[in-house]
């Protein structure tokens, strides 16, 4: 029982703590960048995800040069590429130094709407036709991989967020009700939970995906995938929330609220669930990666997002053959992005968990 006054303390410590932890801060920066690019993909990428050119199938990356063949300094530019075939009928690309395409910024392009809301018609950078800028190479249809990756981020990154939002909500509600009421309600809800957890997740995913009608357009497929993922993901969280609620309902402020006559619903909503937040936030951070990977796996197998839409998973499906990997290794790059985003979420989640660990809390807050 301390008689010393304590300082007011909300959450300013969290941001500072994250910044001080270099690994976590890197994660924050990476995620911030990825999400920004995903949202503003229309602007940041030089091409739309649909923009294809069969003349440039599997074209290697076109480096941006500053010095031309005569050794003179120039504004950044790109050489043209010509496609030829070698003796084994394999494609070979040669640099055509005669064609120079300067790099332009705020290039005019086809009009688009960011996230369907904000209209625009310029892109951050690009080259004039007929030059092609392939920062990270092209895929089989000559579509710019860099652009496709940025657009693909939309699907992969947001499926994680939306899926988690849905399953988190379901898990909180069910866990909260089961934990607070206990008894028969608890038993029934938890058995339900266990049934969901029993079924191997990935196979359930495939089975549910098979049930989705084939005539669904891509957006509908996207939504149904999110729903399916959320459907199988809520059980684990619900169990843990239920455990926390079982002990939280014994707290004296809950009894005080009951004694005053506050309704059960209000008590769960305002007194019990907010106290599960510290655990829940960490659980969310650490489960978003599994959604990203699930979606990638589905799309990789051709069951998720379909061509021509991009997602990191279905971009990777192009890399299924050894021939492609040997001769066009850049198509593995989407994998790097999956890795980066998953790692970032994990690192931030871990750091959050350390921050919220009650034992470290006192020291962290004072720092």
């Amino acid at each position, binding site marked *: *029982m*301390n*008689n*010393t006054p304590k300082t007011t303390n909300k959450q300013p410590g969290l941001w500072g703590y994250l910044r001080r932890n270099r690994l976590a801060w890197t994660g924050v920066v990476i995620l911030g960048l990825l999400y920004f690019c995903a949202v503003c993909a229309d602007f940041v990428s030089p091409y739309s995800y649909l923009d294809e050119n069969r003349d440039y199938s599997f074209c290697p990356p076109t480096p941006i040069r500053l010095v031309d063949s005569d050794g003179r300094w120039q504004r950044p530019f790109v050489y043209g590429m010509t496609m030829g075939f070698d003796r084994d009928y394999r494609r070979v690309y040669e640099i055509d130094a005669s064609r120079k395409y300067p790099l332009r910024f705020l290039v005019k392009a086809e009009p688009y709407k960011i996230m369907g809301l904000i209209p625009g018609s310029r892109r951050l950078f690009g080259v004039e036709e007929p030059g092609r800028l392939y920062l990270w190479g092209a895929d089989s249809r000559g579509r710019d991989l860099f652009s496709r990756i940025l657009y693909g981020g939309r699907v992969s990154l947001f499926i994680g967020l939306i899926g988690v939002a849905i399953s988190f909500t379901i898990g909180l509600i069910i866990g909260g009700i089961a934990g607070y009421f206990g008894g028969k309600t608890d038993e029934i809800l938890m058995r339900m939970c266990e049934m969901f957890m029993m079924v191997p997740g990935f196979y359930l995913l495939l089975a549910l995906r098979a049930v989705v009608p084939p005539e669904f357009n891509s957006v509908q497929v996207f939504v149904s995938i999110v729903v399916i993922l959320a459907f199988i993901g809520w059980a684990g969280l619900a169990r843990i929330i239920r455990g926390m609620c079982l002990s939280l309902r014994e707290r004296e402020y809950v009894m005080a609220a009951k004694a005053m006559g506050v309704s059960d619903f209000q008590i769960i909503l305002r007194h019990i669930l907010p106290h599960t937040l510290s655990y829940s936030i960490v659980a969310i951070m650490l489960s978003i990666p599994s959604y990203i990977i699930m979606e990638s796996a589905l799309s990789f197998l051709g069951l998720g997002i379909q061509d021509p839409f991009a997602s990191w998973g279905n971009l990777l499906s192009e890399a299924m053959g050894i021939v492609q990997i040997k001769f066009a290794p850049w198509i593995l790059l989407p994998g790097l992005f999956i890795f980066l985003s998953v790692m970032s979420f994990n690192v931030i989640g871990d750091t959050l968990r350390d921050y919220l660990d009650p034992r470290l809390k006192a020291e962290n807050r004072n720092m």
Partner: protein
Amino acid sequence: MLLTIKDLSVRVEGGGNAAQILTGVNVSVQPGEIVALVGASGSGKTTTGLAVMRLLDPGLRVTSGQIGFEDQPDLLTLPPAAMRRIRGSRISMVFQDPLSAFNPVLTVGYQIDEVFKYHAPESGQRIRSLTEGWLEQVGIPDARRVYSSFPHQLSGGMRQRAMIAMAMAMQPRLIIADEPTSNLDVTLQARILELFQQLRKTQEVSILFITHDLGIVRHLCDRVYVMNVGMVVESGKSVEVFEAPKEEYTQKLLKAVSV
């Protein structure tokens, strides 16, 4: 003189003004005495006890003072290995909450055996019979059953007795008891206090009794040190301090426990 704490000052590492926990504390304990450290929470009494055992929080630093014990001029300067030999065998501690002082996954008997294994290793059989002997001495009727029980299986009173058995195992000269009865019911408390009195008589052990309850002090302790905000504000024979408390703080404490 068994224990002499001289001019002990402890502060929080790197803290500001509020960081001085103890200032110039002087406490002494004679062989066979029961001495009380009394004060409200935050007065520094527990810190003093922990300082003797050198079990202070890592964030606290002793800035001055000496703690003489038996023939050791200063416990604070002893190398850690030597201090470990003293802890548990010459000076031992009884804590307030026996449930957290015992490891919940080990039986009580095993944990008391550990004291012997560390300080006076002998055959397992012999150690076990010694432990059971002590369990009986502290008034536990079914020593054999309690030996194989886990801490949570015992009642609060039994647990506290088991902890006292653990403290007495190596027949220390000094026991530091930090609020050992504060979590217990009144009737259990009376029995534990009686146990302490018995132990003092039969084992000739001295007790440094840390508490906030002056009533216990009057009943059990020979001398008392009253602490407030890290300083000893009054000291003397229990009887004298109770008859005529000099400090206002002591008077307030007395009034709080008067009936």
